[in-house]
């Protein structure tokens, strides 16, 4: 016996969206709205604070907006507060000024690096005082004191560790004449710890002119003067893998000139490691082709 069937209707039992759809919507909101909506409920608060939500939200940000940061290295302002300049697109037609919400003992500030919208700033030149700052959510944090002794000829690098979803700051100090000391800070432990290279290798890390220490392919890269046991001192690139927390030595490109009066530095260029050299009237740029090849061959790279 057949029953008369009613035509299908949209049944609005509760007319409310499933929770995962709600999170999908929130994941597409600007940061300011997301921060405000943490006040909706406790469960929403903890959902928003979860690593999954944070990385989804990060991926949803429009990547066409390249943010270039510039900060005056020496403040000439009457008010002793630094200002950070941000270009909101590669066309540089929209520039904003963001006041740095904390102070440094010196008037000079350097940008150590930036990852995922998090900035690392330090006083310059000492490099003793380091802050992490997220301008989007207006939160900052001063790092604890060094675990090394007296700091001298400091270099700093800032990196994101994808394996542990952690942020790390690496500091080298050239207090000794023969070798640098190294320490690493991780945000998850909120503490510094010493890093050793090798008992038989002396490394003096060089300042990278005025450029930040580049973070490429999961590693920070320095120009360094390296002396291994029973070998002559040579200039190499020292790469620190922030996941394995180990150093690796990379040779300078073929064709680069060894000499004390040269201006040289390493940088990140379109996501690859680049090496710049100025000798007299000639400027040269090398870009590393295949980073993986270096691990196998121990040498590199193609000339631009």
């Amino acid at each position, binding site marked *: 016996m057949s029953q008369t*069937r009613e035509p*299908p*209707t*949209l*049944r609005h039992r*509760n*007319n*409310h*969206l*499933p929770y995962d*759809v*709600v999170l*999908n*919507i*929130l994941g*597409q*909101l*600007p940061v*300011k*709205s997301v*921060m*405000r*909506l*943490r*006040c*909706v*409920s*406790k*469960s*929403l*608060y903890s959902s928003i604070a979860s690593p999954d939500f944070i990385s989804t939200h990060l991926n949803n940000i429009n990547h066409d907006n390249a943010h270039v940061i510039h900060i005056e290295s020496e403040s000439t302002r009457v008010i002793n507060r630094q200002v950070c300049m941000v270009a909101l697109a590669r066309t540089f037609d929209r520039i904003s000024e963001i006041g740095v919400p904390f102070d440094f003992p010196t008037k000079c500030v350097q940008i150590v690096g930036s990852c995922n919208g998090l900035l690392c700033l330090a006083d310059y030149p000492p490099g003793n005082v380091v802050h992490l700052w997220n301008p989007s959510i*207006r939160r900052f944090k001063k790092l604890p004191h060094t675990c090394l002794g007296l700091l001298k000829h400091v270099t700093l690098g800032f990196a994101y560790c994808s394996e542990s979803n952690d942020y790390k700051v690496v500091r080298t100090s050239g207090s000794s004449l023969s070798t640098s000391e190294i320490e690493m800070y991780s945000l998850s432990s909120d503490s510094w710890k010493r890093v050793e290279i090798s008992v038989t290798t002396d490394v003096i890390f060089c300042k990278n002119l005025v450029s930040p220490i580049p973070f490429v392919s999961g590693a920070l890269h320095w120009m360094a003067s390296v002396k291994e046991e029973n070998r002559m001192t040579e200039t190499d690139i020292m790469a620190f893998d922030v996941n394995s927390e180990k150093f690796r030595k990379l040779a300078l490109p073929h064709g680069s000139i060894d000499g004390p009066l040269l201006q040289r530095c390493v940088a990140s260029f379109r996501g690859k490691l680049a090496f710049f050299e100025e000798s007299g009237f000639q400027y040269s740029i090398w870009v590393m082709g295949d980073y993986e090849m270096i691990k196998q061959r121990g040498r590199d790279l193609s000339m631009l």
Partner: protein
Amino acid sequence: MKFCTVKQYFDDENNNNVTNGIATTVIPLPNKHLKIKANNKEMEQYEQELLRNVMPQELTKLILAANYLNFKEALDFFCRTVANAIQNKSVDYVRKFFGLESDFEPGEEEKLCKEFAWSFEGVDED
């Protein structure tokens, strides 16, 4: 195959989840996508046109349909549209909109609001 549930929808005669009206909006989207696949701007304009006069409440129906049909691109697009519509709305508005209830202890919510007072600047009046 963009969504597998479509076949099920047509087979399932007792389906109350998706009205015909909603289906006519959502189902042609993949074909249109294919036709103007290379040109993102055109697709954006087509989608803006489609949803120009749709209120946020109406969008929930579209979202439920896209969710049921397992059509990820449409779901993301509708969610993005809702996000744009509610981005300046107050906490209360959003609570009612999603049917969520506050489970904070008294005073807890106030403390949070004070901590992030800057995020409440420029919020639309209810």
